């Protein structure tokens, strides 16, 4: 690790630093938040994840002392989550100390061997904290243990003199930070001269802005073209003028009247020629300029786009080592096979991919791959194979991680599901293999019997799924007992480039990924037949059902040519669908951006972008569009589609769930949605207060402790102000002392449900009691 001579290690170190900076930032922010407010589940979850990821990063780099420290830290957070441990200030201090220590190391590249005593003292403190032996009152001055160590290290530039003299306990964090600053300054300069490839960090926003500007440059360059066109037109007009003058001259020549007139005319013609020549020259110069400007603008766009892409290999560098070290630790033998290392991947996707791959690889080595003797007994080669592969397919990025291990035991998984009461026995028995696998992605679901440092705390797969989903992708799992397991990640090339066909629908521009289109054609009106009131045409002996795009997208009617229809044809299994658009424009490469998150889920739309000419393009989701078309054809009706907004749900009662913890919020939402209600969510009292005034709710379920406005205040406010004073409200809280209950009910809540005795039916029962079933 310290002999980072090769370019690869430099890059790894840089990535470790980036990761450490992020996770440590998360840790210290979270810890400080813990000190100032009550510990929320969400916060502890975040902290636990950060510690977990830090541990993972350190493991890849093979920095064992940090793995050791973060492992205990993670344990502490897990214990706090289970309410087995209260994080008192002393514990938070030690955790912060650890954070600072790792920060100093990652920034300064300090020699850990020299600081082994610091590490063991920190480890000791952390272990004490984990065991609940660290009390706030008798805060032992950990500084005493750390300080001399720090002074001994090479990174320190100035011994912290004042700390020795100071009567109070010196703030260790500060000392460490100061030293790390000095150290990092020197190492960065060193690196600058050493590294071949320099990289700087740049926010996605900045790149987006650059991309926007690049687009505008293209737009501007095309405006110049139109000026050039105007000039051409001017030249044509002059030619006409010359013709007219020529005609006049012919007449004058024949009549041979006035020589003066003749001379003037001759001069006029000459002047005209000079003008024409001048315009031609200008035109040529402008042409050259336009070409250069245009190609520059294009290069600008391309550069911005490709600047976001990195090869798959960028994140793979750590894996050979990870696999080697881990299998050694576990007493297993495993060979890593990498494929598609040159596959270019969007930087942002790559970042998420890395942590996902890390989790999966770890899982495979820990649970999937068997010990050599087991393998031999099963007739497999002793050395297992772990394959990681990336490739582009159909305009999407596919990443597959497969092992030839023991596979997943579906039946024992099924048993776990039943034992844990996650599903009723009868239902669980009927679940398919694929459905059973789904449970592996649930938060907190871990099949590992022992919690190890390597994996198996349930943080893995649900985190992996959420990472992949955040990037707009999906993950699936297939496994065969005794043969192996394969994770299949499909990620959009979101934020990267997509080859699309742009079309006009209802007078606005839309795009469809070229890879999804079977073909595009035009159909004359007379070739269209109807069958059971649905239009179709025949193409190469196949019947293609026609669907009007503006109808299916619920847009204004198009302005297409009445006689000839432009049709984009999709194929699904053996069915062909033709989407009728106003007209096609062209094939373009678009820089794809995720649809504005404030729009929520928009059916049939996958992403947005701006086209070459700077106008907005919505990229249609071909999969969803196909499903929509299919259901349209099958049902023969459009407006019955469940997508068509709120109207179809008007018959359901609408509830508002208010909680600042995402987990609780989502759990309650799912619970109530499963009971058939329509559920909206708000993250705190203030947002709920706005929502309540804005929409008609039948009932509100609220938490008590929330930032900005508490649940009690919310209830009081609704009861005191506005026209919805008798809105039924339920408080759900951890506090179940009688006085808390009384406080809530006095504020005007109709019901008070305690979270600690929280069972699914309690909440649903309370809701039912107040407003009845989900139907209006």
């Amino acid at each position: 690790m310290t002999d980072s001579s090769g370019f690869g290690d430099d890059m790894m170190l840089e990535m470790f630093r980036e990761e450490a900076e992020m996770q440590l930032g998360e840790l210290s922010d979270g810890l400080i938040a813990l000190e100032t407010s009550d510990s929320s589940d969400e916060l502890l979850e975040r902290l636990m994840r950060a510690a977990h990821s830090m541990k993972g990063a350190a493991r890849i780099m093979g920095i064992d002392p940090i793995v050791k420290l973060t492992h205990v830290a993670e344990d502490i957070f897990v214990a706090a989550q289970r309410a087995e441990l209260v994080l008192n200030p002393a514990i938070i201090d030690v955790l912060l100390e650890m954070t600072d220590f790792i920060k100093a190391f990652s920034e300064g590249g300090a020699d850990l061997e020299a600081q082994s005593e610091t590490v063991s003292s920190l480890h000791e403190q952390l272990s004490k904290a984990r065991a609940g032996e660290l009390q706030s009152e008798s805060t032992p001055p950990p500084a005493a243990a750390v300080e001399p160590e720090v002074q001994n290290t090479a990174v320190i530039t100035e011994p912290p003199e004042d700390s020795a003299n100071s009567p109070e306990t010196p703030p260790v964090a500060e000392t460490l930070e100061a030293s790390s600053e000095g150290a990092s300054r020197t190492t960065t300069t060193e690196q600058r001269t050493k590294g071949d490839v320099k990289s700087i960090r740049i926010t996605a926003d900045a790149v987006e802005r650059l991309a926007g500007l690049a687009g505008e440059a293209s737009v501007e360059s095309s405006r110049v073209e139109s000026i050039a066109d105007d000039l051409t037109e001017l030249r044509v007009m002059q030619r006409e003028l010359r013709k007219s003058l020529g005609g006049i001259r012919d007449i004058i020549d024949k009549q041979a009247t006035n020589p003066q007139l003749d001379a003037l005319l001759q001069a006029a013609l000459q002047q005209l020629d000079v003008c024409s020549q001048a315009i031609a020259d200008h035109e040529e110069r402008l042409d050259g300029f336009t070409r250069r400007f245009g190609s520059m603008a294009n290069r600008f766009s391309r550069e911005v786009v490709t600047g976001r892409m990195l090869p798959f290999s960028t994140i793979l560098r750590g894996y050979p080592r990870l696999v080697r070290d881990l299998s050694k630790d576990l007493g297993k033998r495993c060979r890593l096979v990498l494929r598609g290392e040159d596959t270019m991947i969007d930087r942002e996707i790559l970042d998420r991919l890395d942590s996902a791959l890390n989790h999966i690889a770890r899982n495979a080595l820990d649970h999937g791959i068997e010990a050599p003797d087991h393998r031999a007994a099963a007739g497999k080669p002793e050395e297992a194979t772990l394959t990681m592969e990336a490739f582009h397919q159909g305009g999407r990025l596919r990443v597959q991680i497969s092992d030839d291990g023991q596979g997943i035991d579906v039946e024992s998984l099924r048993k776990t599901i039943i034992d844990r009461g996650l599903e009723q026995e009868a239902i669980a028995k009927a679940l398919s293999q694929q459905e059973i696998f789904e449970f592996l992605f649930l938060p907190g679901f871990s099949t590992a019997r022992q919690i190890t440092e390597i994996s198996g705390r349930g943080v893995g797969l649900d985190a992996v799924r959420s990472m992949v989903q955040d990037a707009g992708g999906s993950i699936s799992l297939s496994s065969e007992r005794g043969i192996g397991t394969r994770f299949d990640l499909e990620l959009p090339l979101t934020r990267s480039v997509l080859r699309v066909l742009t079309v006009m629908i209802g007078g606005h521009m839309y795009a469809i990924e070229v890879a999804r289109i079977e073909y595009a054609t035009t159909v004359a009106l007379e070739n269209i037949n109807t069958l059971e009131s649905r239009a179709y045409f025949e193409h190469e002996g196949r019947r293609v059902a026609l669907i009007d795009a503006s109808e299916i997208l619920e847009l204004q009617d198009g302005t297409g040519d009445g006689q000839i229809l432009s049709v984009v044809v999709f194929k699904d299994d053996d069915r062909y669908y033709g989407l009728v658009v106003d007209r096609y424009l062209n094939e373009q490469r678009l820089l794809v951006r995720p649809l504005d998150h404030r729009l929520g889920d928009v059916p049939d739309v996958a992403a947005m972008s701006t086209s070459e000419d700077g106008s907005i393009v919505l990229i249609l989701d071909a999969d969803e569009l196909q499903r929509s078309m299919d259901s349209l054809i099958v049902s023969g009706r459009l407006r019955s589609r469940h997508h068509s907004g709120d109207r179809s749900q008007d018959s359901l009662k609408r509830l508002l769930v208010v909680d600042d913890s995402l987990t609780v919020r989502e759990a309650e939402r799912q619970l109530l949605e499963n009971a058939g209600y329509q559920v909206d969510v708000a993250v705190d009292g203030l947002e709920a207060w706005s929502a309540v005034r804005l929409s008609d709710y039948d009932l509100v379920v609220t938490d008590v402790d929330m930032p900005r406005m508490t649940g009690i205040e919310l209830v009081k406010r609704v009861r005191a102000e506005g026209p919805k004073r008798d809105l039924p409200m339920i408080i759900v809280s951890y506090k179940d002392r009688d006085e808390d209950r009384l406080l809530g009910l006095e504020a005007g809540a109709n019901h008070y449900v305690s979270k600690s005795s929280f069972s699914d039916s309690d909440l649903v029962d309370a809701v039912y009691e107040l407003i009845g079933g989900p139907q209006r």
Partner: protein
Amino acid sequence: MSGDNSTLKASGECRNVIGIWGDRSCSELRALDHCHNCPVYTSLGRRVLDQVLELDYHNRDDDKDTEAVAPDQRLSLLVLRIGSDWLGFDTARIREIVVPTEPHPVPHRLKPGFRGLVTVRGHIHPCVDLGVLLGCDSAQTISASPRMVLISDDSGCFAFVADEVDNLYVVAKSHITAPPISIRDATPSYITGMVRLAERDTAILDEEFLLHALKDVCQ
């Protein structure tokens, strides 16, 4: 004609009347091709740059007495018109004011208050119809100089079209009066108070609530 022109030229308005942005009847134009090349235009530009700002320029039409008011007791408002209503927005929330563009509709979003997406300098923002949202009477007035206003919170910008953007005003918070009872009881009411500015009753909006409503209408 030349007599008229000299007054026009003195005011600098000639460019819009007889110049390149007007009917192009100016006799100089033929020789100069473009007002940009005209000394009148140049001197006009100089005049703008050399203009001495009145010391209290920011208070011109504002609420008087604001100078005496502590900064935290003042409010800076951008005043604009939607339909026949004059509305004041907290200046800190306003990001940009641009010439309106036609929104790109979003499939399946047929809400009356939502208009679609607009692009401003390569950025894409949702565009809402504030008139519908606030229940402004927008049918009767025609807009001569509509402007698209970008208002922002942490989640990003929202665009809406105002029929007219007036000016920035600074008002003392003490001069803000409660909205009329009829408004106060209406649900939902976005108005937190009223203030009299430039002889007009201007409604001050509850930004937090409004932004929440904007988010709501986009979903």
